[in-house]
C-alpha cells in the first residue's frame, strides 16, 4: 500500500504545502513545532480538510478536491495514535481496545487481539480504567487500540513527546517492530532527532509549512539546516550488528566490518541496531592516533566539507561503517589540511553514544 499526499492548506500564519508518497514502513514527518506536521497528518485522517489537492491510499482516494471526494474520518481506515493517548475515560482498557475493532471493515480476530495485547504487554491492564494507567501504559493501550481498528495506514503524532526518558525507551521498540513488519505506511510526527534516527525508513521534513519529498534519514541527520541546534545537532546514523557483550560492561558491534564499542545495550547478540553518532562527538586525526583513551577509531576518507558563518565546519567522511560527520573548527580543518579525498581517522568517544540513540 502506498499513501500519496499532494495538498495545499492555508492556515493562520502559514500555508501548508505537501507532496510525497509514503510506502510501507515508517515515514517520519520531521520539523520544528508550528511547521505544520500535525496539520498534515490531521489532513490524512480527515480531521482537517485541505483547500486543494488529493490524498490517496493505493488507488482509493480519501480526498480529491477536483472530484469532490472527501471521505469522512470514520471511513478512511486510519489508525491514529495521539500525543495525549485520548483513551475513553468512561470505558475499561478492554472496551477501549475493542472500540475500533468492532467497527473495522475486517474485524481483527480474537487471536489477533491476543497477539497485540501480548506484544504490547497490556494483558494485565484489561480490566482497569484509563485514569489508573501510567503515561507509558496509556500510550501502549492507545497504540493497541489504533492497531485493533484494522487500519490501512497508521498515524502517530509525537506519541512519545509526553513521556519521560524511561517510558520513551519502553515504547520505541513497539514502533520499531511495526516498522519492520512493514505491512502498512506509518506517518510518524516528531521533532526528536533520536526518534528519527531510530525509526525512520524515510523522512519528510517540514519548514514553515513546506514539506520536502521523501529523503533518506542519514541525509536529514547530516543537514545542519534541518536538525535542531543547527551544526551542533548534526549526526550520522549507522547500522550495526551486536557481536558480543564483554565482561567489562561494553558491547561490541560490527558496523560494515568495523568494530565499535559502546556501553552495554540490552539487545541480544546478532541483533541489528541503528546507532546515531553526533558530529560533535567525532574528532579527526590525519595519522592513526596512539596512546589515546578512545576505543573507536575509524579509518575514513573526507567526502565533503561544509563551512558555516561561525568558527565550525562539518566534515563528511566515508568509513567502513558508513557515512559519518565530524564537527571541528575551521582552524583545525586548515591545520590538518583536510580537503576532499583526504585520508583521516575518525575518533568516536565510546561513552558518547547515548542509549536513546541506539535502537533495533
Amino acid at each position: 500500500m502506498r499513501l500519496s499526499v499532494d495538498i495545499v492548506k492555508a492556515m493562520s500564519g502559514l500555508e501548508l504545502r505537501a507532496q510525497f508518497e509514503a510506502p510501507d514502513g515508517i515515514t517520519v514527518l520531521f520539523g520544528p513545532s508550528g511547521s505544520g506536521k500535525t496539520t498534515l497528518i490531521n489532513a490524512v485522517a480527515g480531521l482537517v480538510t485541505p483547500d486543494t489537492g488529493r490524498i490517496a491510499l493505493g488507488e482509493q482516494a480519501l480526498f480529491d478536491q477536483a472530484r469532490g471526494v472527501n471521505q469522512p474520518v470514520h471511513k478512511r481506515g486510519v489508525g491514529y495514535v495521539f500525543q495525549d493517548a485520548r483513551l475513553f475515560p468512561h470505558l475499561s482498557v478492554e472496551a477501549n481496545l475493542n472500540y475500533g475493532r468492532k467497527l473495522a471493515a475486517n474485524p481483527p480476530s480474537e487471536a489477533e487481539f491476543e497477539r497485540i495485547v501480548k506484544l504490547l504487554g497490556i494483558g494485565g491492564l484489561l480490566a482497569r480504567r484509563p485514569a489508573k494507567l501510567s503515561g507509558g501504559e496509556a500510550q501502549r493501550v492507545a497504540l493497541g487500540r489504533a492497531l485493533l481498528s484494522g487500519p490501512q495506514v497508521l498515524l502517530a503524532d509525537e506519541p512519545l513527546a509526553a513521556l519521560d526518558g524511561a517510558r520513551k525507551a519502553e515504547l520505541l521498540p513497539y514502533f520499531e517492530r511495526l516498522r519492520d513488519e512493514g505491512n502498512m505506511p506509518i506517518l510518524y510526527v516528531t521533532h526528536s532527532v533520536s526518534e528519527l534516527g531510530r525509526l525512520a525508513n524515510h523522512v519528510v521534513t517540514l519548514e514553515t509549512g513546506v514539506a520536502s519529498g521523501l529523503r533518506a534519514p542519514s541525509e536529514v541527520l547530516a543537514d545542519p539546516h534541518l536538525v535542531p541546534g543547527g551544526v551542533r545537532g548534526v549526526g550520522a546514523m549507522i547500522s550495526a550488528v551486536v557481536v558480543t557483550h564483554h565482561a567489562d560492561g561494553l558491547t561490541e558491534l560490527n558496523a560494515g566490518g568495523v568494530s565499535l564499542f559502546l556501553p552495554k545495550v540490552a539487545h541480544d547478540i546478532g541483533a541489528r541496531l541503528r546507532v546515531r553518532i553526533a558530529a560533535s562527538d567525532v574528532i579527526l586525526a590525519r595519522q592513526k592516533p596512539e596512546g589515546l583513551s578512545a576505543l573507536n577509531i575509524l579509518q575514513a576518507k573526507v567526502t565533503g566539507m561544509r563551512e558555516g558563518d561561525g568558527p565550525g565546519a562539518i566534515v563528511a567522511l566515508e568509513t567502513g561503517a558508513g557515512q559519518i560527520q565530524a564537527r571541528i573548527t575551521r582552524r583545525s580543518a586548515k591545520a590538518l589540511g583536510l580537503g576532499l579525498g583526504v585520508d583521516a581517522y575518525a575518533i568516536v568517544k565510546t561513552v558518547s553514544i547515548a542509549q536513546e540513540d541506539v535502537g533495533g
Partner: protein
Amino acid sequence: MSWLGPEEWQAVALSLKVAFWATALSVPPAIGVAYALARGRFWGHGLLNGVVHLPLVLPPVVTGYLLLMFLGSQGLGGQVLEAVGLPLAFRWTGAVLAAAIMALPLTVRAIRLSIEAVDMRFESAAATLGASRLRVFFTVTLPMAMPGVLAGAVLGFAKAMGEFGATITFVSNIPGETQTLPSAVYSFLQVPGGESSAGKLVIIAIVVAMGALLLSEWLARRMARRVAGA
C-alpha cells in the same frame, strides 16, 4: 396517608405523575436540542436557542394561553389530537405537555453545559476508530455528559412538579384531573379554613424539591466519578 386528606393526596399523586411524564417527555428532545446548540453550526442556531428559552422568560400565563389557542379544543392542533384520541385541553395529559414545555429550558441548559464540557478530542479519536457521528454521540459524548443529563432531568422534574401558570391557563384546575399540587395550594388559599391543607402541601413541595436537588447532586457526583474512571 391519613395525614393528608383524599383531595390533598390526589393533588400530590397527580403532580408526581405529571412531573414524571413531563420529564420523560422533555429529556430526549432536550438532549437533541442541547447537542445541536452545543456542537452544531447551522442557520437558525440563534433562533432555536431563543425559542427553547422562551418559556423561561415569557409569563407562564402567556405560554399556557398559546397552548390553549393551538392545542385547545378550538385550536387546529387540538382538533387533530382529538381526532386521533389524544385530547389535551382540560386533561392531565395537557398538564404533562405544559409542564414539559416549561421544564425544557432548564433541562436544555444543564445538558448543553455538560455536552460543551466533553472534550472534543475524544470525539475525534472515536471517529478515527471508525465511529460515525451518531455512534460517537451515543458511545462517547452522551456517556461522558451523563452527569449533566441527570442533573438536568432532576431539575426539570422539580420544575414540572411546581409548574402553575401555564398549567392552570391551559388545562384549568379540575380536582382529580388537572389539579396539581400548586393548583391545589392556590385553591385551598381561596377558601376560608383551607390554610392547614395548603400548609401541608407546601411542606410536601419543599421536601420533594429539596429531595430532588440532593438526589441530583449525589447522582451527578457518583456518575462523574464513574465517568472519570476513578
